[in-house]
């Protein structure tokens, strides 16, 4: 087990809440502080690429990923992200080669992975109960190993974003134009799809299948309303996701709330979004 106690001490120093004294809460907090910014930054591009449905399909392949783990008796910790990665790259490949529209291609994959997951689960009633945790997510059971893996993913994502944020924006505006101006569009798209799949799978762990798209989309959508430039959009998405994650976790642990963590985080983010909509209306009025 990696030793993360120093980080926990820092967390409890910065955020001196009663509920953060418990070890599992500290772990959850670290997990979220790593996961939320990743989802938000990838979300900026998911929104630009109109890939919300893509990430939805990946998140639903979590069932099938877990099911595969059950069949081969491998830990779902491994099969889930690997299967997600495979599905993500496969969708991207078919999408690029096929003349079908991308939502149709994704729709086919979506149905396939869900059906597969359900088929395996339906053979064994006891597993069905376990599946619930993937619907709602459970950040409170995150282990130190998970956190270590998130940390590695975080660094990989940071490097990827530093190298390709500008180019991904360009491709998001118009791939033909980007390609004509010598950007390697296909390479960027595959890397992006792969990384996105991994992050989606880890978000499933934290907030559950139902809310994973929200975690990607909502901060980015709010950021779009707040920001006036592509650079600002990045910082707004970070701000919205981090504040939502931290306040969401703390609220969910209060006695008066006692709600599911994932859902609470998304609700806070949606509140941000509503504020951003009002903000953009006010700005439009003042401009015109």
């Amino acid at each position, binding site marked *: 087990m990696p030793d993360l106690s120093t980080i926990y001490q820092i967390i409890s120093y910065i955020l001196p809440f009663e509920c953060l004294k418990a070890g599992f809460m500290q772990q959850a907090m670290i997990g979220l502080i790593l996961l939320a910014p990743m989802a938000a930054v990838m979300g900026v591009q998911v929104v*630009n690429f*109109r890939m919300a449905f893509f990430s939805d399909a990946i998140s639903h392949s979590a069932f099938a990923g877990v099911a595969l783990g059950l069949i081969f008796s491998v830990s779902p910790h491994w099969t889930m992200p690997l299967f997600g990665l495979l599905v993500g790259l496969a969708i991207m490949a078919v999408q690029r080669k096929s*003349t079908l529209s991308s939502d149709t291609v994704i729709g086919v994959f979506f149905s396939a992975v869900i059906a597969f997951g359900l088929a395996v689960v339906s053979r064994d009633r006891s597993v069905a109960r376990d599946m619930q945790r993937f619907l709602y997510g459970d950040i409170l059971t995150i282990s130190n190993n998970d956190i270590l893996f998130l940390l590695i993913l975080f660094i990989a994502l940071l490097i990827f*974003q*530093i190298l390709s*944020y*500008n*180019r991904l*924006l*360009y491709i*998001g*505006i*118009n791939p*033909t*134009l*980007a*390609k*004509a*101006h*010598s*950007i390697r569009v296909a390479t960027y798209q595959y890397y992006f799809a792969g990384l996105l799949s991994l992050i989606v799978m880890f978000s499933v762990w934290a907030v559950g299948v139902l809310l994973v798209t929200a975690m990607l989309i909502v901060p980015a959508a709010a950021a*779009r309303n707040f*920001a*006036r*430039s*592509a*650079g*600002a*959009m*990045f*910082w707004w998405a970070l701000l919205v996701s981090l504040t939502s994650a931290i306040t969401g976790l703390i609220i969910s642990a209060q006695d008066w709330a006692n709600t599911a963590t994932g859902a609470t985080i998304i609700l806070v983010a949606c509140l941000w979004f509503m504020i951003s909509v009002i903000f953009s209306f006010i700005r439009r009025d003042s401009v015109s």
Partner: protein
Amino acid sequence: MNKPDLLDKYADTAVSFESVTVEREGILILDNVTAMVPRGGCTAIIGPNGAGKTTMLLALLGEIQYKGFIHATCNINGRCSRIGYVPQRLTFDRGMPVTVTEFLAMGIQKKPLWFGVRNDMQKRSLAHLASVKSEHLAKRKLGALSGGEMQRVLLALALQQEPELLVLDEPASGVDFQGEYIFCELLDGLRKEKGFTQLMVSHDLATVTHHATHVICLNHKVAAQGPPRQALTNENLTAIFGMHMGMVDSRSMPDGSAICSGPCCSKDQDA
């Protein structure tokens, strides 16, 4: 064919299409198209809607599969290392918060845009915007630009490549006659200054007659090609557009009296 032979063959040619055929779902979009684009000039591909004009450009840009050969030999080394592309109408999400300066920087700046656009990059973008007379657009949001403004920004983006070959798809669409005229004048000036080869698609005969030095008349096949005065005969136009074109022709090409200040229009053109 080895390289010296190629160079010899294409001494004055920027792009040559040789028996290019594009077929999509059983429909021939380009049927054995053989055409050439002279170096340093302004070549226009004209034809009715659905004639395969844009397809020809996309084949050149390597965006679609085709049979046949396309030799791009813009410079004396027999290559086209830098192609600038101005698309017909940029379909993009207008809600995306991107400024014009960021848009110009995102293809070339390495430092991520979260840390802003570098100073030298800002100066460069401003210079390119100035060359298309649009400095005032630098701080504007991309989604808030009008059709004509967007076109100029796209031209600035293409010029930023320092292109040897500038490819424009319907530069006249979405702009009124006045705007289109000014845009073409601007292009003529830039071409003279920077010495690139210009290849554009158009279905507007007035633009073509005023600004092109070479015309490719296309309707799935090449009906005619050559300098405008030779290629744009009544028979050729009727052949590709069908009826009624005699009328447009007589309006836009009154014998020798067309107002044209473009360098390509002078009688002793050598471009």
